[in-house]
């Protein structure tokens, strides 16, 4: 810049400052843009929320804290882990007296678990996803008395993938994590 002794017009100074500002702003856009682009290059993005069944303690908050009216967390049944028991800890309440489907004997508050006789003494259990509200009562029963084949998981076709999961904020066991597409389902087998 010319170093004139005379006071130059304030407009010119203003323009000069503006130009400096433009240069800084443009530079930072390019710098931040390229850094971020490099960072997210090839990244699939951790946009999916999943429960780690190994960590879940079935506190019951999945049922109440999801932003959806009925939680996106559902009970999933791993048949290959299941013992196909008649006296199922997830199906009947603990200390059940009669093994029948009377409501007072059932663990599931919404009647989402049904079972079918396979062969003596085995029963196949099925979860009706439309009825399940993710309360985790059956999961607690199954992991306490059975093989732990029932577990809670976030169903990706229902989950709206909030930028931050409301349940994760209150999860008592830190079981809900961001995962990418490849691990979008953490299943038990």
């Amino acid at each position: 810049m010319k170093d004139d002794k005379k006071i130059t017009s304030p407009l010119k100074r203003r323009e000069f400052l503006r130009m400096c500002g433009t240069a800084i702003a443009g530079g930072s856009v390019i710098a931040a843009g390229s850094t971020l682009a490099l960072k997210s290059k090839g990244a699939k993005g951790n946009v999916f929320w999943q429960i780690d069944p190994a960590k879940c303690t079935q506190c019951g908050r999945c049922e109440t804290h999801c932003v959806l009216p009925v939680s996106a967390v559902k009970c999933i049944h791993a048949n290959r882990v299941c013992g196909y028991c008649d006296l199922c800890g997830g199906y009947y309440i603990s200390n059940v007296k009669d093994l029948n489907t009377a409501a007072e004997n059932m663990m599931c508050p919404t009647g989402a678990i049904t079972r079918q006789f396979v062969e003596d003494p085995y029963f196949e259990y099925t979860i009706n996803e439309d009825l399940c509200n993710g309360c985790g009562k059956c999961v607690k029963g199954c992991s306490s008395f059975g093989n732990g084949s029932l577990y809670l998981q976030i169903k990706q076709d229902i989950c709206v993938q909030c930028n931050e999961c409301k349940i994760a904020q209150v999860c008592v066991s830190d079981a809900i994590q961001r995962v990418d597409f490849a691990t979008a389902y953490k299943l038990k087998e």
Partner: protein
Amino acid sequence: MKKIFSTFVGFASVALAQAQNRFPKPDFESGYQYPDLEYAVPDETLWNVLDVTMLVALLVAATWAVMKKRKPMIWISLVSVLYFGFLREGCVCSVGSIQNVALAFVDGSYQMPWNVLAFFLLPIVFAFLFGRVFCAGVCPMGALQELVNVKNGRISKPVAMVLGLLPWLYLILTILYAVTRSRFLVCEFDPFIGIFRLGGDVELLVFGILLLIISVFTGRPFCRFLCPYGALLSLFSAVSWKKVEITKKKCINCDLCHNSCPVDAIRPPYANTDKEERREGVKRLLGYMLLMPLLMILGALLMRMSAEGLSRAHKDVRLYDMVVAYEALDAPETIPLEVEGFYMRNGTLDELTVVKDSIVAEYRTYGTWAGALMGMVLAIALIRFSVKRRRETYEIDNAACVACGRCFEYCPQNREIGKSDIEK
């Protein structure tokens, strides 16, 4: 909607070797086959591409409208509210993307999706090139307020200045909470998400509706006094390559545009008659500039001291408090769920103390920076308030201007002389 495009991922996941196996695998004799269950992962790629395409298209349309002094902004606003707002239910949004970007900077394990990056960068690039055309009508929240706005009630200058500091503080706090992995403030307290999703937290819904009612009488209260992304964009629009202008021709100082601005961004001519000595003006400016480091240090100290309190926003720090409170009890009757969960995963207080201390330390470091920034924001506001600028014509304050283009049609210089005018 998202169920339409589904990719099926079968039993591809990691085997979790923690089954208790109290009962052996049954030996079926009847030839029973295990049912094959498949779990669908929605393939969002198409939606993501569509979102970004819509963003670019609307940004280009808004830019064209601003440059050519045309008036399709109401249609752009309508499309944005319908598509980004009601159809896509307000997610992905540029305002929230600040947090993902901040998190990606500090957390190597967090992979930011490319569409979030696009939503963060594109509006900034456009703001740098053409002004805040994103705010004009592409952002569904701005568009919603724009659509209901009827009157441009004026808020007194000092009040507007103080309220205008809020977005900056909100921005700094948002980044602080994002980089410490505590919470996403913007997503948690988004006032319009309940309106777009037709339901949600009652408090936030009431807040959102209140904001909309206010924006009937004065333009865009959320954009001016809350939006952190708007604050970020104003940095770029203030020094943008092309500026939003009321008219390309010479201003005739008719004052017609002045009242049309919903965000009070048009500055009237100012003679600056109460002449003061140049030396005095320089002195005052230097005084404020010297005040800046002082305010920054003060802010940094204050935030550093309140790091412990601020860190309560983090889940693990709250858990620490709960466990300490629980273990202090002699004969606890009930155990809080959090504490129960903590013991169930065999957590010990010592481990938790280490975690808590590291979080508080993080808050101390980042909080110091945040406090210094807050001090700087305050000092710059003071400087801006004290600098008197001579203006000969009506000028747009490009940092505050949201490029809605309402002033264009009020300016008589923008009217092309039609045939009917000549015949008169």
